[in-house]
């Protein structure tokens, strides 16, 4: 999975049978935390004598399908909707491990009810495996009550239970939760890791896998999103917006802002700005003369060689700061079209 350091550590801990029972997997998005959490469940319950997980025994296959009776998954769901939402989201995760679940924009959280179910689950011995593994995804979305209710079990889980909390934002958890868990920090994956993951598990052809691995900047989840057609459109629009900015015609800038705000929703626009930032960072590496030939070629393919040359003359640090500012405004519910037009005009230096 490209996290050799962590894999080795967990393997050693399992061999010595000293794996802490409350784990907190942290690190940036797309670094393989969630996959690794599931992998821990497979390692703990694999039926092979050695080299666990072997990936082929019935237990490993059940874990792989997220249908092992001793693997319990908890996702944030709209409040008061556990009964309906949890089976739905787990079902969609079975089809696409990175599915976020569609809840019509309703705020999601992990409430005290979900944590009570976890406590009930771990109070029983495992059903068929050796250990009960509970994975709490987006653990920072646990409500304060839920976190407090969880403390006792986190402090001293029943002997057969392993609790894995997965989050990008550990700071949002209570100190009392943090202090009860063993932290495992995930670093950004190398490009090779993302590329080979896509080749192995998503049958992406080698050249394309390499392209995606550059653009995904070591983010596995982004890498997988590149395979999505909708995302390809966002990516193309990110490149075309950069071209419009570099040419800098005021009318085009406003026209594009209006079109983008009409065609995309808030999340998609956020992704689009992220993608513009990815391209800007490749340009920055080129400015600093550290970009690889592949990066250079990819950039030229996406925005054209003329535009790439124009981009090299820009103050890209300032550009990235402006994009970051726009993302921040959007998280504060700023109007989409206004934010976009402001960003594009600002990037093009068209303030009169």
């Amino acid at each position, binding site marked *: 999975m490209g996290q050799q350091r962590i894999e080795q550590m967990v393997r050693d801990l399992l061999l010595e049978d000293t794996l802490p029972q409350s784990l907190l997997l942290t690190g940036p998005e797309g670094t393989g935390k969630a996959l690794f959490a599931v992998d821990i469940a497979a390692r703990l319950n694999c039926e092979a004598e050695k080299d666990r997980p072997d990936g082929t025994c*019935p237990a490993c296959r059940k874990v792989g399908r997220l249908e092992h009776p001793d693997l319990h*998954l908890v996702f944030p769901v709209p409040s008061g909707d556990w*009964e309906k939402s949890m*089976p739905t989201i787990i079902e969609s995760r079975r089809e696409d491990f990175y599915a976020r679940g569609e809840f019509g924009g309703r705020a999601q959280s992990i409430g005290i009810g979900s944590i009570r179910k976890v406590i*009930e689950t771990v*109070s*029983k011995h495992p059903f*068929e495996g050796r250990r009960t593994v509970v994975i709490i995804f987006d653990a920072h979305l646990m409500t304060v009550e839920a976190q407090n209710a969880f403390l006792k079990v986190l402090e001293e889980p029943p002997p057969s239970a392993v609790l894995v909390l997965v989050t990008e934002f550990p700071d949002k958890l209570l100190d009392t939760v943090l202090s009860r868990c063993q932290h495992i920090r995930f670093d950004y994956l190398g490009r090779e890791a993302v590329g080979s993951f896509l080749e192995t598990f998503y049958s992406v052809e080698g050249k394309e896998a390499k392209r995606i691995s550059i653009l995904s900047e070591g983010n596995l989840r982004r890498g997988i999103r590149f395979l999505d057609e909708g995302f390809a459109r966002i990516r193309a629009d990110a490149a075309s917006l950069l071209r419009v900015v570099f040419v800098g015609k005021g009318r085009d800038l406003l026209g594009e802002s209006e079109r983008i705000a009409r065609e995309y929703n808030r999340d998609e626009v956020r992704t689009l700005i992220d993608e513009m930032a990815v391209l800007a960072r490749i340009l920055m590496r080129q400015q600093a003369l550290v970009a690889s030939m592949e990066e250079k070629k990819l950039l030229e393919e996406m925005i054209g060689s003329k535009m790439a040359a124009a981009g090299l003359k820009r103050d890209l640090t300032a550009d990235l700061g402006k994009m970051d500012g726009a993302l921040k405004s959007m998280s504060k519910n700023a109007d989409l079209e206004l934010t976009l037009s402001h960003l594009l005009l600002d990037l093009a230096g068209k303030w009169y």
Partner: protein
Amino acid sequence: MKIIVQLGELSKKMNAISSVVPGKTTMPILSTVLVVADKDGITFSATDLDISVTSKVKGKADGKGTLAVPAKKLAEIVKSLSGDSVTIEASGEKMTLTCGKSRFVLNGRSAEDFPKLPKQESKTSFSIDPETLAKLIRKTIYAVSTDLTRPALCGVLWEISRAGISMVSTDGHRLSKVDLAREFSDVESVQVIIPPKALSTLKAYAEGEKEVRVSIAENSVSFDMEDTAIYSRLLEGPFPAYQKVIPAANEKELIVGREALAEATKRVSILADTLTHQVVFSTGKDKLTLHVNTQEIGEAKEEVTAKFTADPMDIGYNASYVMDVLKTIDADEISLKLDRSDNAGLVEPVSEAGELKHLCILMPLRIS
């Protein structure tokens, strides 16, 4: 695999099995029933991961086979059929049911996907008649805690030894303990905590059976009956040291008719506080007075004939807890042994015949 079974028996067993299948689940495989055919019949298994039930239907089989099929659909089909016998065939991941002129083909899933029912080596096992088992369960199950922050209390502790079985349950406000003094040869001493859901399911299934074989393994317990078996996971312990709570020096003994006390408690509790259900027991010479005085609602008082020799005292109890205890004691008179009004009271039947010894502890409420 091909097997012919009697429709009546199949329908009865499917009914029993279906009650275990969970309605909504995060694991679709749990909404299936595992069908295993061998030479002398067909076994159906269902589980909600808390309880697993297997039930065998006898029949003439041709070959072996195993498959997981949607439980609800299978039950509906079986229910809708009319005739004497049903032919069940399985090939690949499909199951065919033929009855008279009706034919159904159900798409199933590989049996390998179905959770493995516990097949651990049992540490100890013994047989018991269902009537005694039902009594033991009835006398303890009501006091099981529902507080998940203390999971070990959310089950009934079974202490098994050659000299008999003790079952204990408590929720911190009350405790119930029943001992069965019966010799079980070849039994290893073990202590396990069994979830109440397993016990209530067992009670329902064991009715009419001749014998229940209880086998206790490392992580699970199984109850085998003639054609049906129930499996349950055990709760993680340890169960608190309940012996320390049983008062040894309660010397003030109140003896009162069980039914009379139950009825009086029920009546006066009508006006009890809806939160605390407090009823005050005032002991006096040859009588027990029950008071309830709730400011917003009103007050009630009733006297019950009783034997009491110590100095008069007032002690508050939760009326529903008192009634739960009185419902499960099998005696005409009960003895309530008291110490101080803020100490636990010990309730026992005055005369107990047979192998069972039952005691209950009630924690008093602060009199408001």
